[in-house]
Structures are given as C-alpha cells and as structure tokens.
C-alpha cells in the first residue's frame, strides 16, 4: 500500500524511447492486423462490418499503408537507437552484441531453455534469468523476421506495377500468400503466446505494464531477473537505474490503454479462430 507523500523508487528497465516505440508498434500492429484481416477473412460477416466501420476498403487500405509506414519508422528508429546505444554505452558493435545484455541468442540461452523445461516438469529449480530471457529474445527477433517478410511482400503488393517490371506477375500471388499467412502467424502469436508470456502470466495477472512505465519494482527484478540484479549490485550501478514510480493516475491511464489493446488483440484472436474453424472456405 502506498504511503501518502512517499514515492517508491523502482528499477528502470526500458528507456523512454523504447516505451514510445512499443506503444507506436502496438498501435500500428493492431491497425495493420485489423485492416489486413478484413481482406483475408473477407468471407465473414465480421470482416464486412469492420471494413465498413473503417470507412470502406479504400480507407482501410490507406490506414493499413499508413500503419505500415509507422511500423517501418519504429523499426528504423530502433536501429538508429541501437547505434546510439552502441556509441553511448558499449563503444563497439562487438561489445553491444556480445556483452552481457546482448539480444543475440547465446549458449546460456540454450541452457536456460533446457533448465526452464526441467523446471516446468518439476525436475529442477527455476533458472536465474539475466536481463533478456530466451523467449524475450525470440519475440524480439520475430519482429525482425516479420518486418522483413511481411514488409517486403507488402511493398510488392503496394507497388505491383513497379515490381512487375522485373518480377513475374504470379509473384504477386505468392507475395499475397506469404504476406497474409505470415501476418496471421504474427497476430496469432503476439495475441496469445506473447500476451501470456509477458503480460498475462498468472503470477503477474492481470497485467505486467513494465513495457509502458519502463519501471519495475525492485522485488520483481530480484525475482524475475536475479542474474541481472546480482550483476547490478556487484557493479554498484543499481542505484543509477532507480527512479521514482509514476503517480497512480498515470498508471491508471496506462492500464486503460493496455486493456484496450488487450481486448482488441483477443477479439482478433477469437475472430481468427472463428474464421479459420467455422467459416473457412
């Protein structure tokens, strides 16, 4: 329970830019998913209603392409941010990519994965995870893969006349299949597995909002990322990373946004299940 006048200090996990990028990503991803799926599941009444709600297929297409531009922007900004991070904290790409807080999969990730499976089946303790767990790294690179695959095919479909100057016409058909099925994979995965892993895990239920606030209670850091906590304590840098928690009103606003995003995500999942299982043609 918060004590009046006393603000708790929390561990800062994400920078302001990272949080903004995640929010932009959520908005653009949801928009892309909603507008894109109306076409993919055009045979459902759902799709028709949604398409009209969005202002028609042309308007939906406009939203889709605008969101795609935002997504590309998020991606590019992140790459630029990585470059600045390298300059600011690591000095070299090597240090960034092979350091203790790397996003790249490492041998330790494999051991942790095996350890986690053992823990799941009751044959070991919970591994002491570091700053980035293997499933977080998987999610991170899934975005790279998604942007590459969905983005490239999307551009082909956006500018078919240009691309067919050097690509055969049937490539557009192939691109359509890849674009839409990869998008289905992305939405399906994000709105189920990702939601569960990072937001909806029972011990964090109803919601982990660290990605929006950027802060997590120190206890939680100790529990979830013990290795990182210990490293910070050992290096004496923990105190640098502590900041005051947001006031309750901000938290409430963030939760409201998160609930909406969650609701949209789950609706889309239900729609996909309905479309795939009961109305597929």
């Amino acid at each position, binding site marked *: 329970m918060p004590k009046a006048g006393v603000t708790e200090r929390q561990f800062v996990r994400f920078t302001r830019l990272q949080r903004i990028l995640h929010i932009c990503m959520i908005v653009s991803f949801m928009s892309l998913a909603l507008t894109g799926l109306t076409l993919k599941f*055009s045979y459902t009444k759902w799709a*028709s209603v949604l398409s009209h709600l969005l202002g*028609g297929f042309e308007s939906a297409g406009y939203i889709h392409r605008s969101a795609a531009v935002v997504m590309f922007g998020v991606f590019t900004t992140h790459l630029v941010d990585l470059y600045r991070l390298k300059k600011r904290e690591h000095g070299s790409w090597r240090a960034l990519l092979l350091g203790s807080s790397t996003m790249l999969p490492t041998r330790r990730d494999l051991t942790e994965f095996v350890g986690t499976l053992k*823990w799941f089946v009751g044959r070991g303790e919970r591994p002491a995870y570091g700053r980035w767990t293997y499933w977080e790294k998987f999610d991170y690179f899934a975005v790279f893969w998604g942007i590459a695959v969905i983005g490239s095919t999307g551009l082909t479909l956006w500018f078919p006349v240009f691309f067919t100057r050097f690509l055969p016409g*049937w490539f557009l058909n192939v691109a359509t*299949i890849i674009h839409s*099925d990869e998008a289905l994979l992305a939405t399906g995965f994000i709105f189920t597995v990702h939601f569960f892993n990072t937001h909806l895990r*029972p011990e964090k*239920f109803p919601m982990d909002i660290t990605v929006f606030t950027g802060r997590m209670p120190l206890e939680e850091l100790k529990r979830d990322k013990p290795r990182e906590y210990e490293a910070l304590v050992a290096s004496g840098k923990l105190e640098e990373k502590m900041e005051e928690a947001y006031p309750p009103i901000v938290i409430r606003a963030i939760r409201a946004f998160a609930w909406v995003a969650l609701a949209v995500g789950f609706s889309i999942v239900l729609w996909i299940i309905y479309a795939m299982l009961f109305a597929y043609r």
Partner: protein
Amino acid sequence: MPETKIVRRKWCAGLGIIVATLLATIFSLLFSAYPGRAARPETDQPGAECLACHGDKDMSTTRAGKTVSLHVDGKKFASSVHGSLGCTGCHADLEGKELPHGTPVAPVNCGTCHPTEQEQHARSLHGRAIAHGDPLAPRCVNCHGNHDILPVKDPRSAVAALKVPFVCGQCHREGTPVQRNRPIPQSNILENYSESIHGEALLKKGLSVAPTCATCHTPHLILPHTDPASSIARRNIAATCTKCHSQIEAVHRKIIRGELWEKEANVLPACVDCHQPHKIRNVFYTQGMADADCMHCHADQKLRRARDGQSLYVDVGELSHSNHQTNSRNQKVACSQCHSEVNASRVRPCETITHEVDCSSCHDEIGKQYQSSTHGQLVSKNDPNAPSCKECHGTHGVLGRQDPQSPTFATNVPRLCARCHREGQKAAVRYTGRQHEIIANYTESIHGKGLLKGGLTVTANCTSCHTAHHVLPRSDPESSVNAANVPTTCGRCHHGIEEQFENSIHAKRVSGSAKELPVCNDCHTAHAIRRTDEDRFRLDIMDTCGRCHAEIAKTYFDTYHGKVSRLGYTKTAKCYDCHGAHDVLAVTDPRSHLSRANVAATCQKCHAGATRRFAGYLTHATHHDPRKYPLLFYTFWGMTTLLLGTFVVGGIHTLLWLPRAFQMRRELRAAEAEPLAAPETPASKESADA
C-alpha cells in the same frame, strides 16, 4: 342480251312497218278517189293523217278541269326512235278508226314491244304504286317522254346519263309531293347526289359512264332496300357496287375480302354502311348511317339489358372523343361497323345481334396475333379470366395508344397489365413460372424508373418486350421472350448491344455450343433490370456468371479483386471489367480483351502503367490446386507448416509454464499475507490495482 333482243325486235318491227307502209301506199292509190282522203297534204310523212289535226299547235282538250295540249310535233316524232312506226304503232286502238277518232283514246301500252321492261316496271315500287292507283306514280311516259323518245345513247334523250338525275329528281327532289307525302327514308337525294363523287363526275366532269340513279336502282325494277330482290338490298349492294368497282377487293381495306363480304353481308358492313347512299364522297365518311337511330334508345342512361340488367347506355361525349371518331385519318366509325349484326330493316335493328363486337373485322392483323396469343387462346376456351380487346382498350371511349388518356399509353401500360398480373391478382395466381413480384420489380427497375419516374415514354414497358397482342409464354418458340428471341427483342432498343452480343462467345452462332447459353435476361433479369453501374448489379454479377462458371467464380474470390468484392465494394474489377460484357470472348480469341495483345491495355484501365508482365498476375488463382498452381500450393503449405510449428512450440511452452506460474502466484500471495515477514515488499503494483 336484252338489248340485242330489243334491237332484233326493232328490226322485226321496222320490217313490218316497211311492209305495212308499202301496202298502205298501194291501198291509197287504189282508193285515191276516196273523197275524205284526197284532200290530205304531206301524204309521204308517217301519220300524216293524224298530224292534220294534231299538227295544230293550239289543239287541246280539257281533262279534269285542266287544259291539256294535244299537239304533236311531226318533225320531232319523225326523228324519234319510234318515228317509223307511225301513230297507230303505239295508239293501236285507233288503227283503222274513222277520223276524227272518238275519245278517250286508250293508254299506250309500251309493253307490246317492251314486255320485259314493262314486267319489271310492274313489279317495281313505281308499278305497284300505279296498281294501287297512286296518282303520283310514274309511268313510262313520265321518264321517257312520249312522241320525242330518242335512243338512250343519244345525248338528247330524256334518259341520257346526264339527264337521269333530273328525270328522277322531278319527283325525288326536296319539296315535291312524292318526297313530302311518300315514305322515302332518304332526304336531299338530288342535292347529295350532285355533291357526291358520282354526281360530281357526271354533272361537273361530264363523265357519261359515271353512275346515275338508274345504275344503282336499275332503270325499271326500282325496289326499296328492304326488299330482298332490290339491287340496293343489304345482301345485293355489294354486287351492285362491284358492277363498276369490280376490283375493289384488291385495293380496298382488308375486311372486304371478296367472299366474306358478299356471302356474309349481314355480318360484315355493307358498302353503304361506310359510303352512305347518295353522299358517297371522295373522302372518308363522316357519320354512320345508323348512329342517330342507335342513340335514339342508347342515349338513355337507364337503358338496361333485360337478360342481366347490364347498362346499355352509350355516352355520346365519351364516344365522340374516342379514336374511332377523332383519329388522325379522320375516319369516323359508325355504330353498325362494330355492332355489325344490326339489321336496319327491323324496328329494333339491334335485335339481330348475337355476338360480341369483333374488332378483328377491321383490325385484321392484330386480331390474328391476338387469336394465337395466350390471351386469345384463353378467350377461345371461354376462360372467365381471359382478357378480350375491351379489357385493355375499353369500349366506346377507345383511345389510341398515343393519347396520354388511353390505358394503352406507354406510361399507363404497367398499370393496365398490373390489373391482372400484380401479385395476388387473377393472372398472377394462375402463373406457375419463376417470375414473381413482376410489377413491383418492374417499377423499381431501370425501365420502370425511366418510364414512371422519368416519364420517358420510349422506355420499355410491358408490351415493348412481350408485345401488345402476341403475348406468349417464354416456353413458346414464337414468344418474343423465348430465349432464342430475347436478344432480338432487347435489340429493338439496344441495337448496338445486340450486335456485340451476337458476335460474343455467348452467341450460339459463335460458340457452336449445344449447351444452354445465356441471353440478356439471364444476367440482367427479366423485370428487375438494374443500372449496370449500380452497386447491386456489380456485386451480383459474380454470382450471376458463377451460375455457369462455378469454378472460375469461386477462385476469383481467392484474389484481391474478389476479396474486396466480397466485402461489398464495387471498385475492384468484376467479371466484365476484364472479360468484357456483351462482347465477351474466349481468352484464346485474339479479339478478346484478355488476349496476349489486349490484356495489358485491359489492366491499364485501372492500373496505369501496367505491363504485359503485370498481367501475369493470376486473377483466378487458388492455393488449393497443386497441379494448376503448384507454386501457390507449396507456398501456402510452407507458410502453414511454419505457422503450425510456431504455434505448437509456443503453445506447448506456454501450457507447460501454466502450472508453475500458478504455483508462483500462490507463493507470492502467501508472502503478501505475512506483512511483518516482508515489511519492505514493494506494493506499488497492488496499489495501482486498487
């Protein structure tokens, strides 16, 4: 023949006269000492003895208080046709009488030499009147004169063609005792005749072959038209007129086709029904002869048929505005032309009517069409619902279809047909076909809106497609809406489209297919025809084409164009945007919109800058067909495998995690429940929850 007889008889008479004259001369020479005769002058002249007295211009006598001249002009007599006969040739009772003869002299009997004429005259109206002692009845002399009779061919003759009207007119002129006191139904006879085409020809143009009174009424056997033997009886009038107008059937209106006209003169109108006697004009005729007679009774609003109480009132106002009275040809139709069974010789001329009015006696061609139509067939089966002419056209007030007041005027036709064909009405309930809500659909269709809302009278109405009188069901090969005839029917207005269609793959002539091919209404529907730029049409067309092209329509929906269409938008390409509408051809046809040479241009209609390679996009592709589209098939299954694999791994990972996560939750809650054991536990998260 009678003329030659007369000639022969005249010859005989002439010979007899010559012989008699010779004998008389010899006789007179022998008895020249006879005192009374020796003093006679000019013995070479015939009847010289008679002229001795009758040559005196002042000779006269008094009969019934009137002075009557007894003068005979010897010269005229001598030059007359009877001149050679002498006086006693006619005044036979004076033959050999002492002179001066006694009085009275017996009337001359022309029949002695002219027995046929006399017999005819005796049977005629005139002859019978004489027999009744009618003082006004004409005898031979009244027309032919007496001592100055000339051959009929002689223009100076009293009965020469040009004089006949005046001879007859002596009595049959307005104001004469005959016209005033005898029952003669016609008035102004001479006046009317003189203004008629016949009278004009004779009297103004001097055309001596023009018919005179005697041509129609005969010279001697003049009988009233009510007498069946009369030349002007209804039954005989046609024969009388065709004496001159022998080829009238060939050139006259169809209703007067020879046989019927003469044999069934009681059914069909007689010449005089239209061409009124004496008034015959070189124009169409203004008034039926019997109209006034009919209106004598039928103008009464209370007049009803005894049998069923139906009103028999005829509204003159309505009638006078009808097309039968005011049509563009100025051809007025008389009551009796439609109600043709009337018999003018009856007191109630209409009592002989046994049939309904048969319009086809004038509207022959239309009548034939109608007979073979569904409507006509129902009538011939005595079906109570069957529409006859009057159901649509009305009766006395019938108007032409150009008249906006007419029920058959273009904008009124749908309402007219709706009376029976609207859902629930008598024709609609008997109908077993596929077309329903015909009237409602038509009203909302492009044709219906054009006609009823746009007021565009050239827009197709019911009869434009079904015809007015030859209405037949679609199944009948003769029907205008039979599949084989539909392109022609629609092409009557949409000619350019018909031309395109007839050259398309859908035309039997082009495809040579034995299958049932679509015609206009298969895509456009029959009654609910929409504008083709309307959303509903553009969205329905895929299903429409898909009725036959099932597979290709299905795969269309697997691609972008189809998916957007499925969402309910019309902007993406529909079947005909690429394949063409009425000019659709096989894609292998070089003229097709999708042939190698044309396809890029077709895509460019929407995709500016599209190339031949762009057109390689598979617009009907499906990823379900590994033989036709292997690339799509394997791409799809590759992606699906990736998707399923990811979900299986992610899903199992998550499911395995769940029990541990719940365990952690329980432990956390337990720790929170002991606040003293963990006084420094951060509570910001929970506080936010609260």
